[in-house]
């Protein structure tokens, strides 16, 4: 059976990991390659690198980082953050990234989704959607969640599926950072409306939250950052607990 996936997300700035990462036995906690290798050994199923560099020079270092990750890590990884052109995606894939994730740029120019899936295949096109529930309505937000739009989450997700997205990474802004669990109701609705995999993001705080998002939320994968980086939830233990709850995972 296809397993549910556990995906640590690393924020990258100027080629280095940001936010505190609290790993033992790590020579350099700021080195994305070291962290990626450690996560691969712990049983992470995939990795996501989110580039939050503000400058062009900073972004340039990401390509070099992608190359080094591809060289040394034997599990798949996605690169996202500030990607808005076919050329940029080409460069990232050439360096060995398996998938790219696009977010605001897809909202601004939806044809980008078609262009990428036609040229590189749906399998490498992840569309990330940040949305917030306001008065019962899930509205898409841009630029890391800072700019609200009138776009409905479910309509947008359906549209990008039709345009060739291979996967949706949905972050609930109502849940992100709360550690109170994932947005399972919206996730389940996405899973029922769409026929491509859905990655849950935002709200992971304990093991039960992962169990809930794979059962109630019908998610195909769950992404988290701090609970993994600070060792609050070790991935091997998380997977054993999921297995005990009859959730198919790779052990």
């Amino acid at each position: 059976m296809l397993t549910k996936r556990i995906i640590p997300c690393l924020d990258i700035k100027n080629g280095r990991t940001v936010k505190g990462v609290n790993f033992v036995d790590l020579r350099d906690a700021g080195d994305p390659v070291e962290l990626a290798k450690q996560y691969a050994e712990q049983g992470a199923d995939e990795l996501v690198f989110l580039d939050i560099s503000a400058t062009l020079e900073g972004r340039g270092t990401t390509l070099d980082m992608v190359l080094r990750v591809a060289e040394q890590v034997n599990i798949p990884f996605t690169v996202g953050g500030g990607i808005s052109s076919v050329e940029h995606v080409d460069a990232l894939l050439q360096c060995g990234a398996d998938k790219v994730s696009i977010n605001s740029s897809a909202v601004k120019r939806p044809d980008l989704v078609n262009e990428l899936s036609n040229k590189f295949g749906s399998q490498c096109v992840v569309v990330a959607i940040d949305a917030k529930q306001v008065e019962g309505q899930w509205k898409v937000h841009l630029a890391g969640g800072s700019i609200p739009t009138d776009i409905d989450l479910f309509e947008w997700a359906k549209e990008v599926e039709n345009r060739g997205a291979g996967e949706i990474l949905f972050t609930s802004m109502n849940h992100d950072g709360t550690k109170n669990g994932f947005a399972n109701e919206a996730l389940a609705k996405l899973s029922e409306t769409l026929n491509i995999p859905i990655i849950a993001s935002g709200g992971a705080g304990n093991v039960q939250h992962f169990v809930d998002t794979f059962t109630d939320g019908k998610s195909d994968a769950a992404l988290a950052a701090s609970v993994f980086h600070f060792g609050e939830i070790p991935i091997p233990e998380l997977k054993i607990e999921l297995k005990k709850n009859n959730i198919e995972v790779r052990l």
Partner: protein
Amino acid sequence: MKLVIINYGAGNIKSIQFAFKRLGVDAVLSNNPEEILAADKVVFPGVGEASSAMQMLKESGLDTLIPTLKQPVLGICLGMQLLCKHSEEGDTEGLGVFQTNVKRFSNDVKVPQMGWNVIKDLKSDLFKGIKENEYMYLVHSYYAEHCNETIAKTDYGINYASALQHNNFYGVQFHPEKSGIQGQKILENFLKLEVKS
């Protein structure tokens, strides 16, 4: 050991090259027929859409060369599918090495299948030391139907051929280069294969 990865413009070949490098083998990326013919082992990769990949093969004349190769050849993902007779994706005629056809998954399952699934009923030296029900990383919307060349099976809505073998031709639907230590072992097995006439 001279290893050539066929470079015809389709797919993430860097990852495959790096995976062999981790095993201590420097693979050459090439679309040059002489270089491919002279290799000890050939990897035929592929990611993307079948008909456009086949078009690229034809433009470089590799469509006629590949089926004549005598050394061990490993098709990965779309590479494996292109070695089959026909693919529903873009109604594409394949190279006809494997006597089976490629179909799209039904919409009863999420398409693409993306993630880790198990391979079982393993036959072939390619899987030496790999245990039954080992997890491999897969990303695909189309699958190869079973035939008597099936050497590994996977379930995803349907039970299909996740690996095939015909004489010196091997094909795997999964990505050994992205399947952790176990995937690496399969690539190592491939490097050790002897030519059988």
